[in-house]
């Protein structure tokens, strides 16, 4: 039996989270089909067909599928599910919104946020904000899963494209309507896929001071993240929150500036390859997970670091 991946896309291309879900599907060793459902999303379907390991793309295109509303997408996923051994989606706000709804329609107890695959019916996942790892086995005939986006390396592009097959869907009828959105516009890389993340905490002290991180982020080509305390205080937008209830990141380099390191925050970044902490409180818990710790006033350390980076990178 094949495996189905629900693609997260913007109509024109698939999100990197989709390539992560395909990577997890690859570990299951079966043919991989990808469902691209939306309005005017032919380009995204082609993009999905170009991901390594994908055998077939199912393309559902209908005006009622615009904006990825769970009410419209879940019945399609639930209808397809019995034909597959596994159905996977990324554990992003998109996948978290749609998959449980689809699973309930299919009468399947799904498994959220898997970080590892032990066997076709056995998965690892973090619980208690990452303070424990549970291994869970399921008896369900279809395994419905969301995939932790930092736990698998996204698949690369394939050399040849998989076939794209249009599927018919009934016009979506539901009581939800998209009213609008305010998406954060940034020239920086996306937080969850950036190679370098610079995050600020309450130690920055104000929204104006928080902007000091921009210079460092620009110099490193980094995304900017924030602790919950900084978001709650209004220093940074909600979608920049790193932590168990915010975004989970695992960049090559994570620089925590003025972040004390609450458990909730650590759960969202402790899989980063190299962690740097800058904090004036030498007892801050963030230092317990940091590879490099600098006990200093961040307002002195930031400009010095920027200057030193300039020199360190200059010869390259």
């Amino acid at each position, binding site marked *: 039996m094949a495996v189905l991946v629900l693609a997260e896309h913007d109509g024109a291309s698939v999100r990197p989270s989709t390539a992560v879900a395909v990577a997890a599907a690859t570990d299951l060793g079966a043919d991989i089909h990808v469902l691209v459902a939306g309005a005017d999303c032919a380009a995204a379907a082609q993009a999905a067909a170009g991901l390594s390991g994908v055998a077939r793309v199912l393309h559902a295109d209908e005006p009622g599928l615009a904006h990825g509303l*769970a009410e419209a997408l*879940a019945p399609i996923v639930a209808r397809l599910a019995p034909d597959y051994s596994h159905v996977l989606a990324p554990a992003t*706000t*998109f996948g*978290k*919104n749609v998959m*449980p*709804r689809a*699973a*309930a329609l299919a*009468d399947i107890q799904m*498994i*959220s*946020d898997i970080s590892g695959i032990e066997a076709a019916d*056995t998965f690892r996942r*973090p*619980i*208690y*904000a990452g303070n*424990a*790892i549970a*291994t*869970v*086995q*399921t*008896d369900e005939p279809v395994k419905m899963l969301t995939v932790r986006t930092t736990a698998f390396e996204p698949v690369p592009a394939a050399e040849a494209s998989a076939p794209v097959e249009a599927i018919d869907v009934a016009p979506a009828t*539901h*009581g*939800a*309507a998209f*009213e609008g*959105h*305010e998406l*954060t516009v940034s020239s920086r890389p996306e937080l*969850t896929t950036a190679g*370098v993340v610079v995050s600020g905490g309450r130690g920055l002290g104000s929204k104006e001071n928080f902007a000091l991180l921009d210079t460092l982020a620009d110099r490193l080509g980094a995304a900017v993240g924030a602790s919950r305390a900084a*978001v*709650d205080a209004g220093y940074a*937008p*909600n*979608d920049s929150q790193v932590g168990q*209830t915010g975004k989970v990141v695992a960049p*090559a*380099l994570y620089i925590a500036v003025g972040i004390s390191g609450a458990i909730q925050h650590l759960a969202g970044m*402790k899989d980063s390859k*190299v*962690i*740097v902490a*800058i904090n004036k409180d030498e007892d801050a818990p963030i230092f*317990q997970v*940091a*590879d*490099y*710790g600098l006990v200093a006033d961040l307002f*002195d*350390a930031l400009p*010095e*670091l920027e200057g*030193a980076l300039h*020199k360190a990178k200059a010869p390259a």
Partner: protein
Amino acid sequence: MKVLVPVKRVLDAYVRPRVKSDGTGVELANAKMSMNPFCEIAVEAAIRLKEAGTAEEVVAVSIGGAKASETLRTALAMGADRAVHVLHEAEVEPLAVAKLLAALARREAAGLVVMGKQAIDGDNNQTGQMLAALLDWPQGTFASGLEIADGSALVTREVDGGLERVRLALPAVVTVDLRLNEPRYAPLPAIMKAKKKPLDTLAPGDLGVDPAARTRVVQVEEPPARQAGVKVATATELAERLHAEAGVI
């Protein structure tokens, strides 16, 4: 309109979870337990709807062992009107919880269910979406804003790219995120008064639901520990080591 608010009793958010030495789960014996923080936000949201005259009655519901009644008393002290306790000592999975809540929502003719987006023990983030599916109601998940007017709910959702607004025809399910409100503390007189508010107890069978588990936790273990590294003296040294030693810049 009647508002249903499901609440869950979990390990207190400020207690550090410890994995049991036999690897069967997280140690809960003698640990401080509290209402799941997301559920507190949901209770607060429901009470505010009542205070605004939008809701007539707020019914709190919890599915769990005998002590879940304490969590319901907390909801009553915050301002819920009455409570329903579905008594079941064993762990109930999200799909079964959703089935129980769906039966209750129908029985109570609820116009709105407001609940936390996830519980901080299992971190599943499934139940609200499953409930909405079973009732065939629209869903507004991860809400940081909620307005009820003219038979619909305008929900502001916290999504990965920023904020999204959806309009839901009532009845609907709304799951709340951290920034929807600041839950109130119940004052002592309210805690005393809550002891006299009605609290009904049901069994899963009364609602026609089989709560048997379909998944098994094979093992629970500590996550791999991360070792603390070195302290550097200056930002200049930091930059040099990141470049020459770690090779990340």
